[in-house]
């Protein structure tokens, strides 16, 4: 009996669950200086943000009465806490996806996964060791923010309950995002594929499905209870919005399901994903140890035998010849083949295509395209997808070569540095081209049908040019600078979030919202929203250009003034993209042989 109890205790011991992988990862990460810098920078940013805001408030209300000042401090305290909580919530999920996206694929690429299987380490220990060691860094960041949030509480108005519940929601959302990314990294050769798949899945579950459900419920006049239950249970964005709402207003509605039930649900889903990952990781490791899977082996043998017999199959006989810039051609063809290589990819692609076409057909049949909301959602989704595609394609364009160790071969050709950079840009553009074409086709079609004001085309073109210049430029720069795709993608997204979200929010908190309004006006998604708001719908489409009044965060402006708002930001993004390209060229031949 004592032996059984000892065994159970031994099994439940966290160290036994994670095994030596966890220790190894901790040892490695403790030797990385960048982790210490990251923590320092993060804490410094939070401190500066809180200090700056507090200083502004004290300065602004220094001549007012103590009571008046205290009430404003409480308001500021709530705003600061909500900003920190939301920033952390979004950033930590993105970073979790990025960190875990290479968890297993890195081992597969360095051919160490199979070797791990020859040791007594179990699959569960591999999965949990990888997960917890990487998430621990993020957990530390969350813990670091706790003292800052506690200090902000002194300003008043912030409830402990809000801080604790928000941190728990953030933690479980991080765990779920990380688990999902880890699962995708098992079957992905590159971390960018895993992070892309994880982000797409999260986007579908947190964004598209709730949207679709909302639509269906409103369309069919069904009870909203189901939607509330569903969102409270599954959607951390919804739960955190509710939580924040409660703190801002005492009269806010109480959620149907308490936050801790949502957290338990998220934990349950994470556990299920990790259990599935444990099974999958073993299969992947065995495939590496013994070559490919049975099915793949058969295919490979068939391909090899057909080649050696001199009778290649028709499919394998096809050769694509290099057309245009060699790098752009290579990037496009390898990308296209990767997407259609496995049956799973083909099925998933087919389903997405059928789903998208069905949705288009449904919207046409129901006449929803005439609705402003429908057009708005479609164009905004296209813009978001365009941003994600540009950022990820550019960020992985060079790191993927470094990861597959083909970078020295390319640099050793007679292509100049500028030709390589140009080819990579062209590659990004060509790989994102389907999205550009779809967006352009959508806009042209519905402009011709009279659902979109033609003037929107001009502004959206300016915005799209800015998006390409900024995201492709910054992505390319970080791709030359870093060794791993996941790091390059994280830095690209982080920089954009800083510029487009955090800096405007911080500016807003300190300056009573004025700076935020100006800074938000430079955000391409905000610009898209403002333009669409005035150019969609039957009423707006018939307006002459001179009658259009665009509602910007600062004020209402006409077409010419709106152009004068969008053009400088497009110019800024173009100049930034240009400088990113110059820097990228400068660091093109650095870190060539750095181990990934």
């Amino acid at each position, binding site marked *: 009996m004592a032996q059984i109890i000892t065994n159970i205790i031994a099994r439940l011991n966290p160290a036994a669950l994670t095994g030596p992988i966890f220790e190894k990862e901790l040892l490695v990460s403790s030797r990385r200086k960048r982790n210490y810098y990251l923590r320092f920078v993060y804490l410094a940013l939070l401190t500066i943000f809180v200090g700056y805001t507090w200083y502004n408030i004290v300065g602004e209300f220094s001549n007012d009465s103590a009571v008046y000042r205290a009430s404003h401090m409480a308001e500021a305290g709530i705003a600061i806490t909500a900003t920190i909580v939301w920033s952390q919530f979004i950033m930590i999920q993105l970073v979790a996806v990025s960190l875990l996206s290479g968890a297993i694929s890195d081992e597969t690429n360095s051919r160490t996964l199979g070797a791990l299987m020859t040791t007594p380490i179990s699959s569960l220990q591999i999965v949990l060791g990888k997960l917890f060691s990487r998430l621990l860094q993020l957990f530390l960041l969350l813990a670091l923010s706790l003292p800052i949030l506690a200090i902000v509480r002194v300003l008043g108005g912030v409830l402990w309950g809000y801080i604790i519940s928000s941190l728990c929601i953030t933690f479980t959302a991080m765990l779920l995002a990380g688990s999902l990314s880890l699962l995708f990294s098992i079957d992905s*050769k590159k971390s960018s594929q895993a992070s892309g798949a994880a982000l797409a899945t999260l986007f579908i579950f947190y964004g598209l499905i709730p949207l679709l459900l909302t639509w269906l419920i409103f369309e069919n006049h069904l009870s909203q209870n189901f939607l509330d239950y569903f969102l409270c249970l599954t959607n951390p964005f919804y739960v955190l919005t509710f939580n924040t709402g409660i703190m801002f207003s005492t009269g806010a509605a109480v959620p149907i399901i308490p936050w801790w039930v949502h957290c338990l649900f998220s934990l349950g889903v994470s556990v299920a994903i990790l259990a599935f990952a444990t099974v999958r990781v073993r299969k992947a490791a065995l495939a590496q140890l013994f070559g490919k899977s049975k099915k793949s082996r058969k295919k*490979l043998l068939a*391909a*090899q035998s057909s*080649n*050696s017999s*001199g009778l*290649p199959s028709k499919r*394998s*006989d*096809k*050769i*694509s*010849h*290099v057309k245009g810039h*060699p*790098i752009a*051609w*290579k990037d496009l*063809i*390898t990308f296209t*083949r*990767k997407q259609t*290589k496995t049956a799973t990819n083909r099925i998933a692609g087919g389903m997405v295509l059928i789903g998208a076409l069905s949705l288009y057909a449904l919207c046409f049949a129901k006449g929803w395209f005439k609705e402003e909301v429908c057009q708005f959602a479609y164009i905004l989704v296209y813009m978001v997808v365009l941003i994600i595609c540009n950022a990820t394609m550019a960020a992985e364009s060079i790191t993927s*070569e470094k990861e*597959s*160790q*083909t*970078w*020295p*071969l*390319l*640099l*050793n*050709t*007679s*292509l*100049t540095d500028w030709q390589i950079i140009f080819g990579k840009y062209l590659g990004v553009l060509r790989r994102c081209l389907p999205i550009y074409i779809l967006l352009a086709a959508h806009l042209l079609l519905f402009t011709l049908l009279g659902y979109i004001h033609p003037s929107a085309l001009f502004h959206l073109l300016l915005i799209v040019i800015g998006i390409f210049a900024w995201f492709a430029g910054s992505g390319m720069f970080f791709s030359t600078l870093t060794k791993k795709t996941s790091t390059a993608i994280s830095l690209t997204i982080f920089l954009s979030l800083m510029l487009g979200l955090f800096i405007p929010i911080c500016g807003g908190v300190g300056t009573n919202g004025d700076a935020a309004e100006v800074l938000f006006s430079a955000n391409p998604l905000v610009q898209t929203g403002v333009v669409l708001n005035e150019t969609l719908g039957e009423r707006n489409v018939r307006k002459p250009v001179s009658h259009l009044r665009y509602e910007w965060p600062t004020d209402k402006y006409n077409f010419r003034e709106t152009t004068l708002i969008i053009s400088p930001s497009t110019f800024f993004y173009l100049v930034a993209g240009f400088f990113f390209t110059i820097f990228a060229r400068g660091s093109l*031949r650095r870190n*060539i*042989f750095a181990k990934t």
Partner: protein
Amino acid sequence: MIETKNLTKHYGDLAALVNLNLNIQTGDIFGFIGPNGAGKTTTMRILATLLEPTSGQAFIDSYDVTKAGQKVRRCVGYMPDFMGVYDDLKVFEYLEFFAAAFNIERKKRKSIVEGVLELTDLQSKSTTAVDSLSRGMQQRLGLARVLIHDPKVLILDEPASGLDPRARIEIRELLRELKRMNKTIMISSHILSELEEICNQVGIIESGKLVFSGTMDEIKQRMGILSRVKVRVADQPQQAVELLIALPQIQNATIVGDHIAVTFNEGADGDGIIARTLVLGNIDVISLEPEQLKLDDAFLQLTKGIVN
């Protein structure tokens, strides 16, 4: 064709190369040997314009590798020790891509790729996906890639590592073929017997310093090793030794196991005189076998096993 002058490379405090001086002539096959971490790969990467030296100069075909990188890359084919491949390309496409990257005209690419495939015996694999090739085939493909722009100089870092004996022999034959095409080849390998067979020049490097550079004969001279012959006799080995030692051309003769090891004096030569002396002394000679200096022996004697 390849020249380095006091080439030095530091990685922080670590001196990977210290004042390396090499001079490799056109048509030479230069075997570059040394223990792991000796600086072979660093030298090759500098010559391939992929790494900047800390100090010193390196020239290929009279072009400075640090100043005229573009011109150097046109006349160099570099095969790294671990070569990545583009997984989703086929063999023909892979080579055509590099042909395009070397600015080879579009209409010439097909014939050049076919020629290189023929040279490396990869025609039957032209439509095979690169990632489904065996290791040996991938190494061959790597060689095909470096030949695509017909470079004057080939820098091959461990081209036979990890290959089975058959694949190694095939690679060796290919290198012989390239030698006939008058390519200047710099090759590193841990399998010294292979280098011995194909190289006319050898460089031995240890801890970033060149311990020796020259021909095989020069190694012998440097090490004071003279020509040796193994003599097997039917009987009377002791008498045979006495007869041989008495000859003025012979420095030493000793019985080693089942044979007599005979060492000639410097500049002396003469398997014939050994045979004639023994036959005249009524000793039946079974065999006379010249004993060659092995590169492995030279390597072991010239290096101390120090690793950076």
